[in-house]
């Protein structure tokens, strides 16, 4: 009975003597070896039967005989000691059997010292484990790729925001440069004229001086003739307005620079309290320099509104909305900004009676890169950046538009209290 049992065990059993000769093989081994009577294998060295791993088997069997202590081998390090196929030759993929092996010392009165090889088919566990490992590796790789992508996107986003800021600042600067060039142009021309006038005046004075010196012996001075020669009347009439005009032009330049400085440059970053009215006045000044046709107007309830915000991003947001409003106006029109503050929120409404937004576009206007402007005249980031900035202030932005009649943007910002310093 025991012989039958050992024969049928679902574990490979191979017993060898000290000369490595096989003295017993169970069915597990026999079924997987070239079919010939079991008797034919007896007394053949196990190293001859399985030459692929002869060296390893010999070493391990020797160690068991010498040490009289079990020896182990695992599929992770040595997956296929015996050249057996996996247990599912028909339905499964036919692969080599993954094996765990244990060799234990035994003995019998007939043969003396023996070594018994137990062979376990661990293909199922091994392929499960390997699949898991592969899956884990794939997941890890994917995860790393995603992380890299997110990082890339993050940096792309901040680059875009920076680019947009540069673009809208650039656009503003271009308009302002134009407006500064104008007064500089006429102040320069005026100065040239004034220089010429000055020469005439000096000439006149010199001539008068000479005549007065010569008067003792010369006939009386023909003053009228002299004044006429030096265009004195023209000088007298033209010089004050020229100076006034130049002065006014320089004042305009100074105002623009002042506004630009206040609005755009004094941006220290971080959250702080600002006077919203002053900020918007400066902004309107800057925009109106460039967009001359619309009438700009700011109303405020109450008269003074202070807002705790991050000035840099908020100004950029409102500026982008207001610039869009100004650009929407062709010919006569108005851009009106209504400020309202309640106990819980602040609202900034930008109303224009410009061309309006097509219905199909309304949903997309906050999408990055969406633009209806001709190529080269905008990246389509202005409102997207505004949206992000308002989100940062935990606020929301809404739009309603009537094609051909105008558009209303409303930004509502919840009241945020400054965090007391700890």
């Amino acid at each position: 009975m025991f012989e039958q049992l050992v024969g049928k065990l679902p574990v490979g059993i191979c017993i060898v003597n000290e000369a490595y000769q096989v003295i017993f093989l169970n069915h597990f081994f026999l079924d997987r070896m070239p079919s010939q009577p079991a008797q034919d294998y007896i007394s053949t060295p196990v190293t001859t039967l399985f030459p692929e791993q002869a060296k390893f088997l010999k070493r391990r069997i020797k160690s068991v005989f010498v040490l009289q202590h079990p020896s182990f081998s695992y599929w992770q390090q040595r997956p296929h000691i015996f050249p057996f196929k996996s247990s599912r030759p028909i339905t499964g993929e036919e692969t080599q059997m993954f094996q765990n092996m244990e060799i234990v010392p035994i003995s019998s009165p007939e043969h003396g010292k023996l070594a018994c090889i137990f062979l376990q088919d661990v293909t199922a566990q091994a392929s499960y484990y390997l699949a898991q490992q592969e899956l884990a590796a794939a997941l890890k790789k994917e995860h790393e790729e995603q992380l890299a992508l997110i990082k890339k996107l993050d940096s792309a986003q901040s680059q875009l925001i920076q680019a947009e800021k540069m673009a809208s600042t650039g656009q503003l600067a271009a308009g302002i440069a134009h407006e500064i060039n104008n007064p500089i142009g006429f102040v320069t021309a005026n100065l040239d004229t004034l220089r010429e006038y000055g020469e005439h005046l000096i000439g006149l004075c010199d001539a008068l001086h000479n005549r007065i010196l010569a008067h003792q012996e010369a006939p009386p001075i023909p003053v009228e003739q002299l004044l006429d020669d030096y265009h004195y009347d023209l000088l007298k009439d033209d010089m004050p307005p020229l100076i006034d005009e130049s002065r006014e032009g320089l004042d305009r330049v100074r105002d623009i620079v002042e506004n630009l400085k206040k609005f755009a440059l004094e941006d220290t970053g971080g959250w702080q309290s600002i006077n919203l009215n002053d900020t918007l006045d400066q902004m309107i000044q800057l925009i109106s320099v460039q967009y001359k046709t619309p009438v700009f107007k700011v109303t405020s309830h109450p008269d003074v509104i202070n807002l705790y915000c991050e000035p840099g991003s908020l100004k950029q947001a409102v500026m982008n909305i207001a610039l869009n409003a100004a650009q929407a106006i062709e010919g006569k029109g108005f851009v009106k900004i209504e400020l309202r503050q309640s106990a819980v929120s602040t609202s900034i409404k930008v109303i224009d009676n410009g061309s309006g937004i097509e219905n199909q576009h309304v949903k997309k206007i906050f999408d990055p890169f969406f633009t209806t402007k001709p190529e080269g005249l905008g990246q389509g980031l202005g409102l997207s950046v505004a949206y992000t900035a308002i989100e940062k202030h935990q606020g929301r932005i809404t739009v309603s538009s009537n094609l051909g009649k105008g558009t209303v943007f409303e930004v509502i910002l919840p009241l945020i209290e400054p965090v007391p310093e700890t």
Partner: protein
Amino acid sequence: MNSVITLSEDQRDALQELMNISMGQAANSLAHLIETQIGISIPKISSVTPSELFTMIKQSNDGFYTRQSFLGDIQGEVMSVVSHHGLTEVASLLEYEAPLSQADTEETILELSNILAGACLAGLSSQLELVTNLNMPTLFSPNKASFVDLNWQHSLVMEVQFDIELSSFSMRVVFCLDRPSLIKLTETLDELLS
């Protein structure tokens, strides 16, 4: 339940001597197999907390770790620390061909652990006339957190060290017994001493 089990001076001395004899047998077996002389240390017997055990095992970062459990009259675990240094030479003594693959290295570590821990345990068991069976060793990497979480407070450990001077290879083997086995061990030691 978790009080410190202290060995009397006689018990400790006896256990140390039995370990010494077992180590001699283990070293001789390995020496015979690889035809190289093995140095053996004086065994250290001590009672440790889990974090002390961790410190004892993880003395340096230069090591491979294996553990294997044993069952029978006394039960516990053996942990071995195998030095990186000299491992290639020892593997070649075990007839592995250089350069070693990852699998060869792992197999060498597992085999060395199995041989030395197995021989020590077999020697100890036979002297005490106890039956023990060692299970297959596995590689592991000890980490402090999982040691601190162990649900015992004190354990008796026996630490021995083997060296192969020629290749400056060394290996430490730490035996840990569970509580019932400790009681069984002390009883057996007492019988031996009487």
